[in-house]
């Protein structure tokens, strides 16, 4: 770590430098979240034969900024019988893990805030903590719709976490490491070396679980408008609502980033004659994020029991089978394909 403040004591300069690096991650993340909402509206509009927002600024590019400003100046209404402390704590508990998980994401061979060895476990832990925010939001609102929404969301996230965890076990077996940077390095050597090929079913299951994990359509029963109004955030308004919104989209970007790192070779270029760079990572993430929007424009919402069936009775057996298959293949002469 470079010491850019040599005149300051070691501990202060390290802290400052770390804070600067955090800001350098969080600010672009916030901007991407804002523009992800813009692209979501545009893409879904296009798929429905509409144009989507195109009025504010050229092509509507200032729309997310207008939306953010509107939400900032709106009043945060506390329901009279809500638990005030928990009511305000819930959005913070949702957004904090969504941002904290970015600490271990390697954007490049060198570009990583905290290069820890248990990076993958840390990310899993952080994405799991996010469910507390949803549960607390539902409980503190003291509203039956919010409560039902948070219960659904909790059950769903817990179920899909397991399938997601198993898919990551497959990646671990291939990479022999929990460090995200090393997982990416293990895939070097062009597009044919990416883990998506030996682990293709796991990649599909990971991605579908990721959609469920982030409560996105078609797994968005937690905010099923037709049944429970808006789910866990029905009582939230203004900036408190915006924070939930921010967390949802930050989580979308996070799971896409993880998929890009673990299955699509992260920052590595697909062909040898292109240099490896962060641009590849961003392209892969944008490609995966487009699928999130595409799914939302295409699929109707799953029924609750169908979600549970898919998670427990289909994904978990398939992932376990494929893990065993990978383990078996590693003992055969074909093991090179799985490394």
């Amino acid at each position, binding site marked *: 770590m470079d010491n850019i403040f040599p005149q300051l004591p070691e501990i202060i300069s390290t802290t400052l430098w770390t804070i600067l690096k955090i800001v350098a991650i969080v600010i672009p993340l916030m901007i991407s979240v804002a523009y992800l909402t813009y692209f979501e509206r545009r893409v879904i509009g296009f*798929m429905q*034969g509409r144009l989507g927002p*195109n009025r504010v600024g050229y092509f509507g590019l200032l729309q997310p900024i207008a939306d953010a400003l509107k939400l900032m100046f709106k009043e945060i209404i506390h329901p009279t019988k809500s638990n005030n402390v928990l009511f305000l704590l819930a959005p913070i508990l949702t957004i904090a893990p969504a941002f904290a998980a970015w600490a271990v994401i390697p954007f490049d061979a060198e570009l990583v805030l905290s290069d820890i060895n248990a990076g993958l476990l840390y990310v899993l832990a952080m994405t799991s903590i996010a469910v507390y925010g949803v549960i607390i939001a539902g409980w503190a609102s003291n509203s039956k719709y919010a409560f039902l929404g948070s219960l659904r969301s909790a059950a769903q996230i817990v179920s899909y976490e397991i399938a997601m965890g198993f898919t990551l076990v497959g990646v671990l077996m291939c990479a022999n490491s929990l460090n995200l940077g090393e997982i990416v390095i293990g895939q070097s050597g062009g597009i044919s070396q990416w883990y998506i090929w030996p682990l293709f079913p796991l990649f599909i299951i990971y991605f579908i679980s990721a959609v469920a994990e982030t409560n996105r359509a078609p797994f968005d029963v937690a905010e099923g408008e037709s049944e429970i109004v808006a789910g866990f955030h029905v009582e939230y308004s203004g900036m408190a609502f915006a924070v939930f919104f921010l967390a949802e989209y930050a989580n979308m970007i996070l799971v896409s980033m993880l998929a890009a790192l673990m299955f699509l070779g992260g920052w590595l270029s697909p062909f040898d004659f292109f240099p490896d760079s962060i641009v590849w990572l961003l392209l892969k993430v944008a490609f995966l994020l487009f699928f999130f929007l*595409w799914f939302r424009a295409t699929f109707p919402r799953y029924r609750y029991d169908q979600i549970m069936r898919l998670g427990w009775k289909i994904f978990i057996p398939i992932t376990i089978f494929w893990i065993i298959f990978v383990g078996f293949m590693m003992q055969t002469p074909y093991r090179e394909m799985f490394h």
Partner: protein
Amino acid sequence: MDNFCWVYDANAISGDVSLKNMFNKIKHYLKSLTLYELIIGLGLTGRYFFSKKITIQYPEERTPQSPRFRGLHALRRYPNGEERCIACKLCEAVCPAMAITIKSEMREDNTRRTTQYDIDLTKCIFCGFCEESCPVDSIVETRILDYHGEERGDLIYTKEMLLKVGDKYEDQIAKDRKEEESYR
């Protein structure tokens, strides 16, 4: 609970084990596992993504209007400048929303004219009965559809306002009446 099936499949419930049903079952499982139907759906929305967009960008673009379009009202004049309305009050009588208020008196030249002709546009249902009932084609509905009021009472149009609308759009009004003449 054995006959409870998640996917509708009559063969699975009946327990039929013929070769054809086995084949159908395998086909069904393969279809689900390869996400066949989902990919078909994605293909459909994917095609629409590149299709021509049907949005009309309103202030710049407008949908085509019929010459019979029933928008904001207007009172017309004869080419010599004399107002057409003879205060027969047929429009007031026929108006189903009772949005028209007319008061009349004798003018110096012994003709009957209105002193007050108010249309409450917040009551009006734009049925066009007033226009149909008018014996002298005085009250008409124009093609204007975007107008607004900022205070209470702004949308109660008085005689002067209606005449002004008529004067401003007389060319268009006359053209539309001419076009529809043969159908009336």
